[in-house]
């Protein structure tokens, strides 16, 4: 599992993967967290895909699937352009940088970066669920 190397892999357990993705999508649509965290988790642990393949697929898929919920929010007038505009520019710059950086990183490092992000969103959701 290193850089500049072709890693052979097999896609395992597609059907449990399906159900994880449905749960991930519902939660992502409800909470507005994009669902990417669940996506990577589902693909990496349940479908046995390598880390880089999961994060690339997830990043790609989210662009396409978020259109489903984003278009509903936009048509309902829930998106304030003055807030969304700067956000979109920042996210675009960040995701371009991220996709370039990930090619030079060890999969283990990516996982280590991923852990605090998952922990943070878990704590935040618990907080929102119980105390707000």
């Amino acid at each position, binding site marked *: 599992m290193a850089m500049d190397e072709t890693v052979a892999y097999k896609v395992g357990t597609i059907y449990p993967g399906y159900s994880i993705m449905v749960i991930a999508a519902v939660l992502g649509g409800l909470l507005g967290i994009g669902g990417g965290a669940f996506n990577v988790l589902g693909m990496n642990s349940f479908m046995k895909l390598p880390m880089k393949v999961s994060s690339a697929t997830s990043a790609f898929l989210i*662009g*396409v699937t*978020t*259109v*489903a*919920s*984003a*278009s*509903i929010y*936009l*048509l*309902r*007038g829930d*998106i*304030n*352009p*003055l807030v*969304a*505009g*700067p956000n*979109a*520019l920042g996210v*675009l710059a960040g995701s371009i940088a991220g996709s370039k950086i990930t090619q030079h990183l060890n999969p283990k490092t990516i996982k280590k970066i991923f852990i605090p992000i998952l922990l943070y969103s878990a704590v935040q959701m618990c907080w929102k669920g119980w105390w707000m």
Partner: protein
Amino acid sequence: MKRFFAGDCESCLSNCIQTGIILSASVIMIGMIMLFVMGTSGYPPNVFPITLTQVFTGLLALKPAAVITTGIILLILTPLVRVGLSVIFFLKEKDFQYVLITGSALVLLISTLILGKMFV
């Protein structure tokens, strides 16, 4: 494995996404520069264009909020166009299993657009 490395189509789809992103990012950027220069969104506070006609008329009147919304609409449309293009490419390759998969994704995306409009 051939279908995953069909060079031409892949680079065309990648170009499609990159063009959409650069286009929408520059439109949003122009809108934000206009917002800072003009000092107003062109609408009263907490009011912004929602329907396509509102966005379009606002765009013609060069209202910053409408320009930013146009950029956001372009950003949302980019993946939709990309899925549409991939249906065409798979049709060309006569890969009907993938035509079915991408086609159903496209139908789902367009139907949420229409349903989201209907059940406001």
